[in-house]
Structures are given as structure tokens and as C-alpha cells.
């Protein structure tokens, strides 16, 4: 067996051991209050998204283009039996990086008026709630995503989904 094969078997054994040990481990002491944030990327920019602002995350499988759509509107899609307009986050925020086709749809919680298309969902990080609130306030003031947070993977902006939806609604209103 090669060195790579030995490493993979050891990894599997370790994972199995940790999984089994998780059930036998006593509950961990109460960590400091932290809020789970979703790590996404769009237009070459990485963002944190608060899970509490999302109704769900879905794969972007079927999008029907709309003729004469406004800027940033990719089309219509169906989420749990409801038709939602899908917007490209990179286009809405005028991000400088290359705009690839979105693979994931972030559905706004609450009103569920629209979906935001992002290129990648990288995972979930837990950030202390105080830092998240401060960043959310800063993002609210900036009208989008300018509140900076940092986890083990590095710093990135906190995306204020409600502010983005306000921008979309503002763009939908006739001039």
C-alpha cells in the first residue's frame, strides 16, 4: 500500500473514531454566545451571511429567463412551490471580479420576496454575536456589505441581506 493509501485509511479510522466518540463525549461547556455565519463568494468577493436572514439555501438548478428583465435579474425559479425572482448578487453589488454562473440560491427569510445567486457556498463559521452585531450595524449603515469579520479562514465582509433586498426593491421602483 502506498503512503497516500496509508494516510487515507488513517484518516477514515480517525473520522470513525471521532464520530463514535462524539456520542460518548459529555456535553461541552457552554461556549461564549456565537452566531453561525454562512461563508459564500460572488464576483470574486467572499462574504459572511447571517443564517438568521436566510430562509434556506438551495442549489440553482432551474432558472427561467425573463424577457426584458432589469439589471441583475437572472430569471424566475421555484422554491418550495413558490415562484421567486433570482438576482445575481455580484451584479447587484457591482463587484469587480469575474461574474460566473451562480450555483446556489440564498432565499431571504421572512418575506421571501427574492433569491440571491452566489457562485459558491464554502461552509459555516461561528463568530461571537457581539462582533456580528457590530458588523451588521456597520453593514446596515453602508447599505450592503462593508462590515468586516474574521474567522480562521481570514477576513471577509458581512452581507446585509435586508439591505441588498432594499436596493433591489429600490431599483424596481420606476424612476
Amino acid at each position, binding site marked *: 500500500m502506498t503512503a497516500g493509501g496509508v494516510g487515507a485509511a488513517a484518516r477514515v479510522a480517525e473520522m470513525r473514531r471521532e464520530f463514535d466518540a462524539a456520542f460518548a463525549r459529555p456535553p461541552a461547556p457552554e461556549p461564549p454566545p456565537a452566531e453561525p455565519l454562512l461563508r459564500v463568494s460572488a464576483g470574486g468577493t467572499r462574504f459572511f451571511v447571517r443564517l438568521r436572514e436566510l430562509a434556506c439555501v*438551495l442549489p440553482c438548478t432551474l432558472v427561467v429567463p425573463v424577457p426584458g428583465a432589469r439589471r441583475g435579474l437572472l430569471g424566475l425559479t421555484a422554491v418550495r412551490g413558490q415562484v421567486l425572482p433570482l438576482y445575481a448578487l455580484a451584479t447587484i453589488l457591482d463587484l469587480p471580479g469575474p461574474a460566473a454562473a451562480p450555483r446556489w440560491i440564498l432565499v431571504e427569510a421572512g418575506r421571501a420576496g427574492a433569491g440571491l445567486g452566489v457562485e459558491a457556498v464554502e461552509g459555516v463559521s461561528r463568530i461571537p454575536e457581539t462582533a456580528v452585531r457590530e458588523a451588521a450595524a456597520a453593514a446596515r449603515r453602508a447599505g450592503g456589505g462593508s462590515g468586516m469579520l474574521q474567522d480562521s479562514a481570514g477576513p471577509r465582509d458581512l452581507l446585509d441581506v435586508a439591505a441588498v433586498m432594499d436596493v433591489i426593491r429600490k431599483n424596481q421602483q420606476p424612476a
Partner: protein
Amino acid sequence: MGSSWTFGQKLGAGFVVTVGFAVVILVVAVYAIRTAVNSKDRVIDVNARNLADAGQLHSDIEGTSSSTRGYLLNKDEAYLERLRERRAAAKANIDQLRANSGSESERRAVDKVADLLDAMSTAQDKVIAERRTSTDMTAIASSFHEYVQPKKDAISREIRTFVADEEKLVTDGKRASSDAASLAINLMIAVGVVATLFASGVGFLLTRSLGTRIGTAVNHVQSSSAELQAASNQQATSARQQASAMTEITTTISELLATSKQIAESAQRVAHLADQASGSARGGDGAVQKGQEAVAQIKKQMDAIVNHMLELGRRSQQIGGIAEIITELAEQTNILAINATIEAAGAGEAGKRFGVVADEIRKLADRVGGSAKEAKGLIDETRQAVNTTVMATEGGAKAVEAGARQFGDVAESFRQIADLVRTSNEAAREIELSTKQQASAVQQVNGAVAELAQGSRETEASTSQTLQTSSQLATLARDLAKFVRAEKAV
């Protein structure tokens, strides 16, 4: 006389002209002799004959007169018969004279004699008839003297005149013959003088031309003798040098003979070495054939390795597909865990424990996804390694094929080497044989060169003789030139 003529042509032309003059002299002499002979023959055949006939005619006339007188005196018939015979003879003479008459005067004289003869015959017949009837001799004698005698006298005068004329013609003929002979003699003397003068002139010209030409030829002979003397000197020098060179050649050929023997010995050793090399080449050929078989076996093994590696690549690709499925499942599990976390957060305190489980599931999905990515990376590395191995194996297979071809080339080269060694062996033996023949030939050449050296020495001796002869020839040419110049001066 043309200056381009040769001396022989000039001499021939002189002889031709001289012979021409001799022919002219001969023709003139023949003409003169023939003219003199003709003149003499005419004198003898015509005039002398006429004189004789005239005499005979005069005798016949006298006979007729005598016969008439006899009949008149005797009255004998026999006289009459004799008279007729004389008359017939006289007429025959007259006819002969008329036939031989060459001039009109002669014919007139003959005719006149014939008329007088007829008149005398008539007179005689008249007197004879009177005699027959009369016996008066006096009257008859008177008639005879009156009629016959004058006629006879007239005939005699005419005959004498004719004879005188003929004698004159004889004299004239003799004179004409003498004149023709004298003319011919004078003409021959003139032609002879001219021929003598011409022959003298031709001889003088030929002598002068011959002298000039001989002088020129002597000058040429003199210059040629000098050149021949110089050439003989040079040839003598060359002959001496040639003899010296022949000696050197003899020495060189002796050395060449020794070298040829050494070459023959070397060729023999080369043939022996070629035999050994041929055996080695055959051994190498067998070893190369075994190596070729081993390379073919390696090639077969390499093909099997390539097939196994390609199968491994296909299996790795299938494992990669499975890993992608695992990655997809882990991603979907992660998304489900995220949505579960969201739902748990929406459930408030009641969903907190569910959120913990969802968070654990999400972490597990993250780790499964990471492991699946690592597995995919390992599989990619494996596929890449397989591809590299396949390419290396294919390169090895190609190298093995190239090695096999090279082994084939080496085997072919060994065969060629064996052929070349065999050819070299044959060539060495041919060289050995040729060198022996060459040594034999060199020995023969050595003998021939020795003979040639002897010939060179003889040539040197004969060249000295030639030099001496050319010197004598030059002296002779100078003497001859002096002689010719002296002759010309004279």
C-alpha cells in the same frame, strides 16, 4: 624553267627537248634521203628507161628500114614479116615511152615520133607495093629515097631530140637529187647546231641549278650536322644519366622486392587474424540472436505492463467518478445541514439541540467533502502517475522496440562484419598471392632493368659513335660546301 621544278624534272625536260631535236634531225634526214632516193629512182626508172626505150625505138626504126631495103632488094616475104615485127616492136616502144612520159613535151615528142612512124610505114608500104608491081630498081630506089628516107631521117632526128631531152632530164634529176641531199645535210647541220646550243644551254642551266641546290642542301646538311652533333652530345649526356638512373632503379627494385616479401608475410598474418575475427563474428552473431530473443520477451512483458497500467487508469477513473459522487453527496449533506441549522435557529430554543446535531452533521459533511476532495486529489495523482507510467512504459516499449531493431541492426552488422571479414580474408589471401606474383614480377623487372642498364651503357657507347659520325658529317658538309662554292666561283 620553273623554279618550282625539281632537278629531276628539269633534267628530264632537257632530255625531252634534246630527244625532240634528235627526232627533228631524224625526220629531216629521212625526208632528205627519201627525196634524193625518189629523185634518183625517177632518173633511173623513167629517164634512163626512156633513154633505153628511145635507143630500142631507134634500133626498131632502123630495123624496119633494113627489112624494107631487104624486101626491095630481094623481094623476099621474110623481110616483110621481119618488117611487121619491127613495126610492132616500135609501136610497143612508143606506147611504153608515152606511158613513161612525165611531161607534156615528152608526150608531144613521142606523138610526133608515132606520126612520123606512121608516115614512114605508109611510105614503106607504098614503095613495097611498087616493088611488087615493078622491077625497075632505079625507080624503086628513087621512090625509096624520095618517100621513105626523109621520114626515117625525120624520125631519127626526133628520137635524137627526145634522147637529148631525156639526157637533160637525167642531168636535171641528178642535180635535183644532189640539191635535196645538200639541203637535207644543211638542215640537219642547222638543227644539230641548234640542238647543240640548246643542250649546252640546258646543261649550263642545270649545272648552275644543281650547284645552287647542292649548295643549299650542303648548307642544310651542315646545319643539320651541327644540330645532330648537339643532339648527340645531349643524348650522350642523357644516356649517362639514364645509366645512372637505371642503377638507382635496380637498387630501388631490390628494396621493393624485400618490401613485397614483407607484405606477403603481413598478408598471411592478416589472413590468419581474419579467420579468428570471422569466428568471433559468428560467436557475436549467436549472442546477438539470443539478446534479440530476450528483448522480444521484454517487449512482450512491457506490453503486458502497459495493458495493466491502462486498466489501472480506467479503474482509477471509475474511482474518481465515485469520489465525485461522494463529494456531491457531502456537498448536498452540507447544504442540508446548513438548512437544518437555519431551521433550528428559526425554531428558537427548541431547535437548539437539533441545531447542534445539524452542526455536527454539517461538520461531518465538511470533513467527508474534504476527504472526498483529498481522495479525488489522490486519485488524480494516481491517474497522473498511471498516465506517466503508461507513457514511460510506452517509451520503454518504444525503447525496447528500438533496442530490438538495434539488435536486428547489430545482428545484421555482425553478419556484414562476418561477410566483410570473409571478404577481407579472401582479399588478404589474394593480396598474399598477388604479392608473391608481384615479387616474382619484380624479380623479372629487376632482370629486365639490368638488361636495360646494359642497353643504356650500349646506347651511351653508340651515342658516342653517333657523335663522332656527326662530327665527321659536319666536316664533310663543310668540305662539300667549300667545293660547291669553288665550283660556282669557277
